C-alpha cells in the first residue's frame, strides 16, 4: 500500500506541546471537539430510540383504552406537572447561558448558571417526589395494592399508571444522572479546567440537558393533559 508518512509532529517527545485537555488519540482540538459533539448527538439518537419504545406502547394502549387513559390522566396534578414543565424549560435556559458563559471564559458566570440549573433540577425532583408520594398514599402504584374507586375500568387504568410511572420514572432517572453530571462539571469549573478554548464537556452536557427537557415536554401533555385540560 502506498503510504507516505507526513511529518506531523506527534512523536511522544512532543508531549509537552499540547494542553492536557487534548486527548492523545486526536490530531488537534477541532477533531476532538467534532468527535465529542458527534458522539453526544449519536447518544441522544439512542435515547430517542430508547424512549421510543415506551411511547409506542403508550400510543397503542391509549388508542385501545382511551377512556381509561382520560380517567387516569384526570387524577394527575396538572398544576404540579405544569410547574415542573416551567422549571425544566427555565433550567434549559440557564444551561444555555452557562454554555455562553463558558464560551466567554467567565468562570463566575458559569458557576452561577450551572448552579441555578442544578437548583432547578433538584426542584423538579422534589416536585416529582411529592407527586409520587401522593400516588403512594392513594394506592395508585401498579402492582402495589393498586386501588381505583372512581368511575372507570380499574384494570386498564392500572395500565395507564404503569406507563405513567415507567415513563416519568425513566425520565426522572435521567434527571438524576444530569444532577450528578452538573455537580461534576461544577467541580471541574472550580478547578479551572475549562477555558474559552476548551469547554466542550459543558456544551455537550447542555445538549443532553436540552434533550431531557424535550422528553418532558412530550411527556407532560401526553400524560397529564389527555382529553383536554381539567380541574
Amino acid at each position: 500500500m502506498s503510504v507516505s508518512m507526513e511529518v506531523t509532529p506527534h512523536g511522544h517527545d512532543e508531549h509537552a506541546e499540547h494542553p492536557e485537555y487534548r486527548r492523545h488519540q486526536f490530531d488537534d482540538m477541532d477533531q476532538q471537539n467534532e468527535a465529542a459533539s458527534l458522539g453526544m448527538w449519536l447518544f441522544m439518537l439512542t435515547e430517542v430510540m430508547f424512549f421510543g419504545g415506551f411511547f409506542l406502547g403508550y400510543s397503542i394502549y391509549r388508542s385501545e383504552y382511551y377512556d381509561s387513559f382520560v380517567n387516569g390522566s384526570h387524577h394527575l396534578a396538572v398544576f404540579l406537572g405544569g410547574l415542573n414543565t416551567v422549571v425544566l424549560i427555565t433550567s434549559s435556559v440557564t444551561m444555555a447561558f452557562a454554555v455562553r458563559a463558558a464560551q466567554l471564559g467567565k468562570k463566575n458566570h458559569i458557576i452561577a448558571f450551572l448552579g441555578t440549573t442544578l437548583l432547578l433540577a433538584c426542584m423538579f425532583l422534589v416536585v416529582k417526589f411529592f407527586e409520587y408520594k401522593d400516588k403512594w398514599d392513594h394506592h395508585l402504584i401498579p402492582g402495589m395494592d393498586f386501588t381505583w374507586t372512581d368511575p372507570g375500568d380499574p384494570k386498564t387504568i392500572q395500565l395507564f399508571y404503569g406507563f405513567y410511572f415507567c415513563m416519568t420514572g425513566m425520565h426522572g432517572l435521567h434527571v438524576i444522572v444530569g444532577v450528578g453530571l452538573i455537580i461534576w462539571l461544577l467541580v471541574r469549573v472550580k478547578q479551572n479546567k475549562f477555558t474559552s478554548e476548551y469547554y466542550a464537556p459543558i456544551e455537550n452536557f447542555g445538549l443532553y440537558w436540552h434533550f431531557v427537557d424535550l422528553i418532558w415536554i412530550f411527556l407532560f401533555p401526553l400524560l397529564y393533559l389527555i382529553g383536554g385540560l381539567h380541574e
Partner: protein
Amino acid sequence: MSTLESNGVVAEHRMPRDHFLNATHTVKSWLLTMDHKRVGLLYLVSISLFFLIGGTFAGIIRLELATPQADLLEADQYNTAFTMHGIVMIFFFLIPSIPAVFGNFVMPLMIGAKDVAFPKLNLASWYLYIFGAALGVITTLFGGVDTGWTFYTPYSSTYSNGNVILAAGAAFVIGFSSILTGLNFMVTIHKMRAPGLSWFKMPLFVWGIYSTSLIMVLGTPVVAITLVLLMVERGLHIGIFDPSLGGDPILFQHLFWFYSHPAVYIMILPGMGVISEVIGAFSRKRIFGYEFIAMSSVAIAVLGFFVWGHHLFVAGQSIYAGMVFSFLTMLVAVPSAIKVFNWMATIYKGSVSYDTPMLYALSFIFLFSIGGLTGVFLAVMGLDIHVHDTYFVVAHFHYVMVGGAISAYLAALHFWWPKFTGRMYPEGWSRFAAFMIFAGFNLTFFPQFIVGYLGMPRRYHVYPEEWQFLNILSSAGATVLAVGFVIPLIYFLWSLKSGKASGPNPWRATGLEWVLSSPPPEHNFPKTPIVREEPYNYGKIIDNPAEEETEDVEHV
C-alpha cells in the same frame, strides 16, 4: 501454496523489540487499559470463554436429542439448556464477537488512527459486557431461565418459574456495551480517518463495521426498553403483556423482533467485511465491485429494520402487514446475493492460495449461501406456515450464524492472529481444523432441514421415533464440530510461546494495519499516514519486510 513462502524460502523473522503487548506488564495496565488493541484482546478472552459455555449447552442438547425419549434431562432442565444456549451464544458471543475483537483492534489501524474516539468509553463497554455476562452466570447458578432466548410473553412474564428478571437484566446491561461500542465506532470512522482516506477508499471491513454500528446504535435501545417493560411486568404485573389485564402479548413480539431481527445483521455484516478482506488478500486481487459491496452493507443495515414482522406471519399479525414484511424481506436478500457474486468475481483471474483464512472464507461463501437461500423459504408466507417453529428454522439460522458468522470469525482470527501476537500458528493443524469444522457443521445441521420440513417442531425435548435417524446424524456431526472448534484453541495457545515469528505482513496484504510491525507499537503510527492510493492495490508486489525496515515507514 502458502503465502508464507517467497522464492521457496520461508523468511526468518524476529519479534519486534517494543510493541503494545510488552509495553507494560501489570495486570492493572491491562484492566485499566485505554489501548484499543488491548481492549480487543480483553474481549477475545472473554467471548472465547462464553463460546465454550454456550457450546457446552449445545453439547448437552445434542446428546439428549440422540434418542427420541428423555434419557439425560428432565423437561425443565432441557428447556433451560436450550434457553441458556441461545442467550449465551447470541448475547455473550455472537453480537460482540467480530466488532468487539476485530473492530476494536483492527479498525482504527485500518483508518490510520491512534485509537478509537473515546478510549475510556471503550474500556467501560468491556466492563459493561463483563457485568452483564456475570449477571448471566449468576442466572445460571440460580437455576437458569427456561423461556427461550426470545422471552415470549405471557409465558415469561407470568407463568415461567425461571429467573426471568435476572436473565433479562443481564441482556439489558450487555446491550449497553453494544450501544456504546457502536457509538464509539461511528464517531471514530466519521472523524478520525487519516488524511486522504475518503469513504470510498476505506477497506470494506470498515464499511462492515460502520453498517453494524448503525444497527447497534439504533436497534439495541429498543430491546433495552422492551426488557425493562418485561421486568416491570414480571415484577409488578401491571398488565402490559397480560390479556386478562387488558395487555397484548403480541406487542412484546413486535417490540422484541424490532431489535432482534436487525441484530442478526449485526452478527453477519462484520463477517462479510472480513470475507472481503480475506478474499482480496488471498487472491492478490482488488475486490470486484467495491462500491456495490460497500453500498450493499448499508442497504442491508437500513432495510433490516423494516422486516421484523416475518417472525409473526402466523402469530396473529394481519395478512396485509405480513405481505409488506414478506416483500421487504425478499428485497433484503438481494444485496447479500450481490456480495456473494462480487466475491466470486474477485477470485476469478486471481492468484489464489489456500491458507487457512481463505479456507474459512470459501467455506463462508458456501455455508452462508445455503443459510441465506433457506431464509427465502421462511420469507415466503405460504411456506412459512408449514416450516415456522420447526427445525427448518433452527437449521437456517445455524447456517447463517455458525456457518456464516463463525466461519468469518475464524477467518478473521486466522488472518489477524499474526498481527495481534507476532506469531504464526501451525498451518497443517489449522487447515485440518477448518475441514473438520466444515464437515462437522454440515453433518450437524443439514439433516435438520429435512427433519424440519417433515414436521419436527423446535424446542422439543422428546420427539416421534421415526425421526431418530436424522437426529443421530445431527448429534454425530455435533461431536465432530466440537472437536473441530477445540483444536484452534490448542494451537493458538501453543503459538503464543512456540509459533514462528510472522513478520509485519506475512500474508502480503494491503491495508494500513499490515504496514505496522506485528504486534503493532503501543501508539500505532509514529506519524499520521497520508493515504493516496486505492484500497486493495494488489497490482504491485507487496513484501513482508524484515523488522528493521519498519522503523522508517517511508516506503511502498
